[in-house]
């Protein structure tokens, strides 16, 4: 006698363990909400306050990063935005390429870019030197001994 399976029973057993795609999906949404705040704040302070872009120079950045608040602000902006963007780009690679060498190459390149830029960006924020020796005094922030 043939047994007939219940309608809609899965053709293969459900995978066990952590569902990475699900966490990626959740990450896109959680990071998205945080990024609205972080990016709008970044753009407000850098483009709208005072003279906007015209006010940005080395001294401007030195002034911001003199405070741990802006250092950590930029740290979270960097990590949330880059990982969100790269994960979104991964979706596009999945959509527009077939599994195979090209797809793997693109994903490895994407991953490598993320690792390199997260490392670089984080080091830039936390090893920043507001008063590099030998620089023209007029380019340095006012709190430098040379300025």
């Amino acid at each position, binding site marked *: 006698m043939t047994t007939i399976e219940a309608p809609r029973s899965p053709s293969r057993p459900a995978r066990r363990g952590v569902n990475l795609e699900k966490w990626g999906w959740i990450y896109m*949404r959680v990071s*998205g*909400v945080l*990024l*609205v705040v972080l*990016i*709008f704040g970044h*753009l407000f302070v850098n*483009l*709208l306050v005072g*003279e*906007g*872009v*015209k006010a*940005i*120079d*080395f*001294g401007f*950045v*030195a002034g911001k990063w003199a405070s741990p608040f802006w250092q950590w602000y930029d740290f979270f902006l*960097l990590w949330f*935005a*880059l990982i969100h*963007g*790269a994960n*979104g*780009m991964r979706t*596009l690679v999945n959509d527009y390429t077939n599994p195979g060498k090209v797809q793997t190459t693109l994903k490895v390149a994407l991953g490598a*870019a993320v690792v390199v*830029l997260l490392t*670089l*960006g984080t*080091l*830039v924020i936390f*090893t*920043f*030197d507001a008063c*590099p020796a030998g*620089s*023209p005094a007029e*380019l*340095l922030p006012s709190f430098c001994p040379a300025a």
Partner: protein
Amino acid sequence: MSESATGTLTAPEQPAKRSRPGGTLYRGNEGMWSWVLHRITGVAIFFFLLVHILDTALVRVSPEAYNVVIGAYQTPIMGLGEVALVGAIVFHAYNGLRIILVDFWSWATRHQRLLFYIVIALWVITMLGFTPRHLINVFSH
């Protein structure tokens, strides 16, 4: 229909339009355009961010190097580019919030189309506030 009285076959009077494939689904409607725009703006912001982390890294090279490159952000052409960039981000941000609402809140799922027009309206308002102020900064001083 005088033609059919003679027995010849005539083409339907209104072809194509009504039988457009997939017309009942996303295709061609707000749902598709919001998705296309969300995708294009997301990619654009991503590539900007790659460059932006590199240009900011110049603060570790020297004040001179950083000032030269950030000076390029202050030219009129780049000023217009910044309006485009901010326009892309503001759309992606508002539409992203719309996606999140549609995913988690059944009222929003039912009213996704209305929410799309709210996104457009908020985008227009935000850009009306941002653009004049930014362009005055760029074109004066």
